[in-house]
C-alpha cells in the first residue's frame, strides 16, 4: 500500500464518518484554522458528510488572504521602483490591491518573479547583482524560518542587493482575536498541522486553559482530518485539552532549529490583518541587527494611499476569515468575484476559503 493511500482509505473513512455521526448527538461547531484544511475538507466532501451535527467553519489560516490591502499596495509600489525585482510566491501575484495587482504591474513592465522559496529569490539576487531583489515575506510560522534562513545566507555570501519585506504573521494571536471577539460560537478548533510542526502543540495550550475549548492538531489527508474531528467530538462534555492527532509530524515542543532561525532574525511586532485589524504581538519584523536587509528601511518608500480597499467593493473576505460568514453568503461570490476575476484574496489563493468553496463546494441540487 502506498503511503498516501493509508490516509485515503475509503473503508476506514466511512467507518470514521459513521462513528462521528453516532457520537455527535448535539450540534458542534469546529473551526479549521488552516486554509489547507478547508481545501481538503471541500475536496473530499467531508463537510457534507459530517453535516448537520458537526459544522465546520473556515478560519484565518491563509497567509495571502490575511494580508492587508495596504501591504499589497505597498508591494506593488515596491515592484514599480526602477531597478527593483520583487520575488513572490505565486498566489500573491494575483491578489488585487486597491488599484491593481502585482500581475498587472508585471504586465506594465515591473519586474515580478514567482518563486517557490526564499532561497530562489536569494539566487536571483546572486545572479543579478545590479538589481535589488525584494522577497515578499508572506506566511505564518511555516514559511518565516526559510525566509530567516535566506537572510542569514545572504549575510554569509555578503550580498548587498537582497531584501525582505516581512509581512509574516503568527497564528496563536489570530486564534485569540477571533475567540475574544465572540462573533462566532466555536466548540472546538482543528489545529494547523504544518504550523504546529514548527511551534509545537503546547503552543495551543491556551485554548483549553483560557477559553475552555479543545484543540486537535491535524494533518492534511482525509483520514487525518476525520480522526482529529472524531477526537474533538469525543471530548465534548469532558475536560478540554490539546490532542495531537498528527503525531507523525508534530511534537510538543516543535522544531527547535526553525524556531531558532526565526528568533535570530525576527522580533515580534504588531501586524495588520485583513479581517482582524491591527493585532499586537502578532507579526514578525526584522531585528535591528538585520536592518540592512529590511526592504522598508532600504527604499524609504512612502506607504501609498489605499483609495478603495476590497471591503468597499463589497468583498466580505474579512468576515470569511473570522468564520462569521461562509463564502456563498457574500453577494459577490461566484458572480462578480470568481477565481478568474477575483475581487478579494480569499478567491485567489489555493488556501483561500472562497476559492475552495467555488471549486469544490457547488450545490448538488
Amino acid at each position, binding site marked *: 500500500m502506498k503511503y498516501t493511500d493509508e490516509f485515503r482509505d*475509503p473503508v476506514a473513512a*466511512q467507518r470514521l*464518518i459513521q462513528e462521528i455521526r453516532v457520537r455527535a448527538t448535539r450540534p458542534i461547531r469546529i473551526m479549521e484554522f488552516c486554509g489547507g484544511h478547508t481545501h481538503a475538507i471541500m475536496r473530499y466532501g467531508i463537510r457534507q458528510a459530517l453535516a448537520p451535527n458537526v459544522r465546520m467553519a473556515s478560519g484565518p489560516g491563509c497567509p495571502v488572504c490575511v494580508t492587508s490591502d495596504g501591504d499589497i499596495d505597498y508591494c506593488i509600489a515596491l515592484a514599480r521602483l526602477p531597478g527593483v525585482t520583487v520575488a513572490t510566491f505565486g498566489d500573491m501575484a494575483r491578489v488585487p490591491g486597491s488599484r491593481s495587482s502585482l500581475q498587472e504591474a508585471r504586465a506594465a513592465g515591473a519586474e515580478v518573479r514567482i518563486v517557490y522559496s526564499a532561497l530562489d529569490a536569494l539566487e536571483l539576487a546572486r545572479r543579478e547583482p545590479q538589481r535589488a531583489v525584494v522577497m515578499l515575506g508572506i506566511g505564518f510560522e511555516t514559511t518565516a524560518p526559510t525566509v530567516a534562513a535566506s537572510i542569514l545566507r545572504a549575510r554569509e555570501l555578503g550580498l548587498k542587493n537582497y531584501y525582505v519585506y516581512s509581512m509574516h504573521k503568527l497564528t496563536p494571536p489570530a486564534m485569540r482575536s477571533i475567540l475574544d471577539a465572540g462573533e462566532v460560537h466555536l466548540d472546538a478548533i482543528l489545529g494547523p498541522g504544518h504550523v504546529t510542526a514548527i511551534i509545537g502543540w503546547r503552543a495551543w495550550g491556551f485554548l483549553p486553559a483560557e477559553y475552555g475549548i479543545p484543540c486537535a492538531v491535524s494533518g492534511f489527508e482525509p483520514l487525518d482530518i476525520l480522526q482529529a474531528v472524531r477526537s474533538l467530538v469525543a471530548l465534548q462534555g469532558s475536560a478540554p485539552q490539546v490532542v495531537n492527532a498528527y503525531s507523525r509530524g508534530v511534537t510538543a515542543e516543535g522544531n527547535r532549529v526553525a524556531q531558532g532561525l526565526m528568533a535570530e532574525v525576527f522580533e515580534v511586532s504588531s501586524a495588520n490583518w485583513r479581517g482582524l485589524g491591527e493585532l499586537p504581538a502578532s507579526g514578525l519584523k526584522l531585528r535591528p541587527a538585520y536592518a540592512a536587509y529590511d526592504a522598508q528601511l532600504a527604499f524609504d518608500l512612502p506607504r501609498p494611499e489605499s483609495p478603495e480597499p476590497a471591503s468597499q467593493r463589497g468583498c466580505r473576505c474579512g468576515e470569511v476569515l473570522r468564520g462569521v460568514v461562509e463564502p456563498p453568503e457574500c453577494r459577490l461570490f461566484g458572480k462578480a468575484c470568481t*477565481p478568474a476575476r477575483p475581487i478579494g484574496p480569499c478567491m485567489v489563493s*489555493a488556501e483561500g476559503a472562497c476559492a475552495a468553496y467555488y471549486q469544490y463546494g*457547488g450545490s448538488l441540487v
Partner: protein
Amino acid sequence: MSEQVVLLAHGSGGLLSHELVSSLFLKYLGNPILNALEDASNLPLGDASELLGGQLVFTTDSYVVKPLFFPGGDIGKLAICGTVNDLAMRGAVPLYLSAGFILEEGLPLRDLERVLASMATTAEAAGVHIVAGDTKVVERGSVDKLFINTAGLGLVPPGVRISAAAARPGDLILLSGAIGDHGLAIMTQREGLRFQTPLQSDCAPLNSLVSAMLAASRRIHTRRDPTRGGLASALNEIATQSAVGMEIEEQAVPIHEPVRAAGDLLGLDPFYVANEGKLIAIVEREDAQSVLEAMRAHPYGQEAAIIGQVTAEHPGRVVLRTILGTRRLMDMLAGEQLPRIC
C-alpha cells in the same frame, strides 16, 4: 567552433532560408507533396478515397510549451499529437497536416533538428503527412525559442457520428488511462523537482486507438481528449453540450502514484491537470465492455477503465463520488490554467 544558431537571415527568403528548408525541414519532413515546394499543395485522396461520402474535418492548434524538451516528449511530438488527436476525437482518419514555425533568433540549430526529427517520427507513427509549411524568424526576445502551429485535415468515414453533444443517459464513461502525467511532468521539470520515479508526459497520437475502438463498436457517442483543464473540465464540457448529468467514481479513475505525489506537493489536483495522450469515450452501455477490451489491448489504452455513467438527472453537472464515499459536484477548472504546458 561555436554552436550554429538560427539567424534573422534564415527567415529572409534568401539563400539561407533555402538552405534551412532543404537541409533541415525537407530532410525530416519531406515527402513528394511537400518537396514540390509549391505555393499551395494538391492533396490526392489516394487510399482514403473509399472514405468519400464521409465528411472532411479540419482543425488547428498552436504549441508554445516550455521547456521545448520534457520527459516523454517535446514540442514537435506535441504539435503532431495534439492536432492528430483533435481529428481522431471526431472519428476522423487524419490525412494531412500543415506546420508553421516561428523561430527565435539564436535558437540552436541542433535543437531545431531534434524537434524536426521528433515530428517526423511521430507523423510516421500516426500515418500523416506534412504537406504545407512555413518558417519565420523573429528577433531575440520576440518569442521564446520556438513556437509551432499545425493544422490538420481528416476524413470521417460514412456513418460515424461522434460529437460532444451526443452523450445519452445510460451511457458508460470510459477513460483510456491514468490522468495528470503530461501537466505534472512539465511542471516538475520546470520547477527542477526530482522524484524517485520520474514523471513522463503521456503525449501520444491516439488515432490508432480510436480505430481499434471503432472496430469494436460503432455506438461510441462522444469522445474527447482531456487536455487543458484536465478530465474534470472535459467531462463538464460534454455534460453541458449533451445536456446530461454524469456520475464519476473517483476510485475508478487511474492516477499514477508519482503524479499524485507531485500534485500534492505543488497543490495541483490531477483531475484538473492536462493530458496529451488520453481520451474519454462515452459509449452505449451494452457495448462498453467490448470497447474497454479493445482499448486495453492497445498500447495506448492498457490502463483504460470505466469511470462512471451518464445520467438524466442534474443535466450539465458532473457529480464525483469521492474515495471517501461522499458526493460532491466536480466543476470546471475555476482558477488559472498552468502556463504554457502545450
